[in-house]
């Protein structure tokens, strides 16, 4: 058991660190307004620099311009970038999840056309899976792609919770191409141009007041036949690949969204009355215990990754732990600091306001616990009423049940 670098890793870390020392003053601020084109452009430029130094797409095969390295090296890069206080890549979703999906399922043309611009930040990508009526139950997507006689497709429907859509060039979209087969079977994955006619992007404001996500509407958008990724009707399988890389990216991510016990302790330590109160101390201790556990769960995941294992659904438990511990932290901080902690100017406003939504982001806790209970503990599944039924019938049944 050892948390220190091997000599090779130490050497790599040193090399990353010195590059960052040299170039850090050319880096834009770590946070800025995602609606501000100038800021986004500075982040694109910075990603380009990182890519040229092989600090973007660290785990991508070198033939696609990546670093051709392992997960540990990816973490080392993440750690050094955080330590240097500079922002990382802009297109986390593209490079972390969608690029790897193209590498796995894309055609050679798709790979040579898209991977380079993606890696260098010239073209940012977004993931178009969730819909108003297809959240946890992703296979319920209703966005429809109709095959035209010329082999092109006409796309119509609505996607939601789309990050970065407002400055994306392309998106990877999961659409229904056959409603007369059971829901998991009739879907296909496509590459869609985000700046084309027939694509409407609307910011979706959260409790924070910021539009941290988007709604994207497709109105009879025409897309060429060669935009299909992974084959017609194989959309579900292709989507699962993306979700696997999503878990992997989270597994490699630094611990929980910056919700760290030392930050919370720092804020409380200045209030002597609170520090002397055993109940406040128990609350700080219990949520901190959970967050410390998440840090070492991350190291365990990394150990597994380095050993060639793919993180299983149980890694989702770290998200549950982090979100609930951070919610407890928000309650504690506002109890101690008073209503001013709820003011927009407060360091804690965003966390307190953002967490209620984060709780169900990427699938509700209930669905996650179902999956883990069944796949990890081997408990029997729930009775499924949607198995083997053509999607069109399923929708009809729901409509009549509500009516």
């Amino acid at each position: 058991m050892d948390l220190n670098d091997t000599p090779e890793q130490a050497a790599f870390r040193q090399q990353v660190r010195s590059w960052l020392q040299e170039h850090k003053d050319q880096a834009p601020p770590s946070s800025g307004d995602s609606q501000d084109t100038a800021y986004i452009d500075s982040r694109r430029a910075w990603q380009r620099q990182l890519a040229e130094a092989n600090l973007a797409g660290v785990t991508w095969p070198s033939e696609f311009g990546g670093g051709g390295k392992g997960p540990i090296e990816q973490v080392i890069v993440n750690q050094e970038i955080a330590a240097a206080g500079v922002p990382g890549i802009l297109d986390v979703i593209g490079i972390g999840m969608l690029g790897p999906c193209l590498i796995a399922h894309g055609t050679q043309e798709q790979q040579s056309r898209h991977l380079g611009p993606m890696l260098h930040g010239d073209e940012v990508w977004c993931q178009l899976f969730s819909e108003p009526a297809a959240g946890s139950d992703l296979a319920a997507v209703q966005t429809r792609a109709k095959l035209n006689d010329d082999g092109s497709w006409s796309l119509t429907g609505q996607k939601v919770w789309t990050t970065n859509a407002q400055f994306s060039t392309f998106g990877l979209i999961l659409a229904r191409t056959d409603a007369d087969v059971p829901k998991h079977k009739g879907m296909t994955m496509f590459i869609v141009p985000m700046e084309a006619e027939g694509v409407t992007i609307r910011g979706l404001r959260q409790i924070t007041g910021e539009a941290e996500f988007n709604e994207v509407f497709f109105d009879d958008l025409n897309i060429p036949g060669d935009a299909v990724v992974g084959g017609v009707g194989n959309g579900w399988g292709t989507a699962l690949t993306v979700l696997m890389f999503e878990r992997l990216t989270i597994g490699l991510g630094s611990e929980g969204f910056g919700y760290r016990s030392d930050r919370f302790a720092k804020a409380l330590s200045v209030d002597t009355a609170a520090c002397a109160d055993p109940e406040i101390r128990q609350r700080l201790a219990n949520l901190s215990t959970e967050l410390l556990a998440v840090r070492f769960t991350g190291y365990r995941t990394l150990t597994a990754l380095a050993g060639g294992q793919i993180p299983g659904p149980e890694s989702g438990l770290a998200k549950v732990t982090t979100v609930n511990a951070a919610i407890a932290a928000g309650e504690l901080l506002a109890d101690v600091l008073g209503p001013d902690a709820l003011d927009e100017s407060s360091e804690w406003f965003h966390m307190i306001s953002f967490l209620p939504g984060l709780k169900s982001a990427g699938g509700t806790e209930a669905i996650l616990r179902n999956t883990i209970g069944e796949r990890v503990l081997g408990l029997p599944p729930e009775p499924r009423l949607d198995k083997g039924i053509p999607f069109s019938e399923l929708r009809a049944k729901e409509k009549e049940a509500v009516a």
Partner: protein
Amino acid sequence: MNLALSDEQEFLREAATGALARVKTVEAAREALEDPSKLPDLWTLVKDAGWNGLLIDEDHGGAGLGAFDAMLVLEECGKVLAPTPLLGLLPATAILNAAGDESLAAVASGELRPAYVPARPSSDSHAEWTVDPVGGFARGAAPVIAADGSVTGTVAWVPDAPGADLLVVVGVDESGAPAATVVEASAASVEAVTRFDATRSLGHVTLDGSAGRRLDVGEGDLTAAWYLAHALIASESLGTVQTTLTMSVEYAKERFTFGRAIGSYQSVKHELTEVLRQMENARSLQFYAGWAGADKPEEFALAASAFRNAAGHALDFATRSNINVHGGIGATWEHDAPLYFRRAQLSRRLLGGTHDAADRVASELLLAAAAA
């Protein structure tokens, strides 16, 4: 043995529902987050309904009703997030009424609107009367009231202080004994503050030798006012819990996932049953507070504190669970669920906080046990 509402109480409740239904209060709660001017002024509605005189004796022009009746009105306000000034007003009128103050007629007629500037009674763990500080966990010192009624001190987060004509200030006299004085708003400095929940009008009140009329009230009246305020904010919370539970249940019946209405899943069903359980417990304690307020004053502190503790926890749980049941859409700006969440977040930290109400429950139980 009968906990049913009287016909008058049923009527009072229905009248409140009807009056408040005429204003789009929930919509206003959202709009006011960006434009405070969008907040409706409900003062006329309050006067027309006679709620300002609810706790004032009839021979002073009031309705001469009791704490429980006031709770029923606040519960209706809570259901629709109505920005009435009752939380600050009613405890003030209770003190003025106990003192038989000269302002009563004008207050009962609605000519003058008083606000209660609260002080927290001493307990087994805190010997002094204290007030809410602007920030931090340490309690503030209660204002000091001179024999001539003039008063000096600062009290933060005072409900409905902005725009009030009179401030009914609770503090301590030179000997440290609890006392009260009524101050013209013009003689004090009231900094209006809103945080997170635009429907809640709050003020930081600073008194610097402000002239006031010393009120002839006993410690019991001032203690009762504090717990009355707790019973009122708890009732308001209870109303909000009912609204969110109804929202959640409706959505859980209509929203489908994996071919089933989400309400058919135990995770959702049991979470909503838990909201019901907490709501019903709070409801039961509302009866306790109402009964104690009328027939068992020596238990009012315990009853009102327990009620606020239960309703506060129910509000926290219900408003979060309402967002959970709605999924991502329930956490968006345009949805109503976050408005109730905002209400919960702020209410939890007002008037000493839910946390202090719980400590009072312990205080009352331990004092009683030691005495027994």
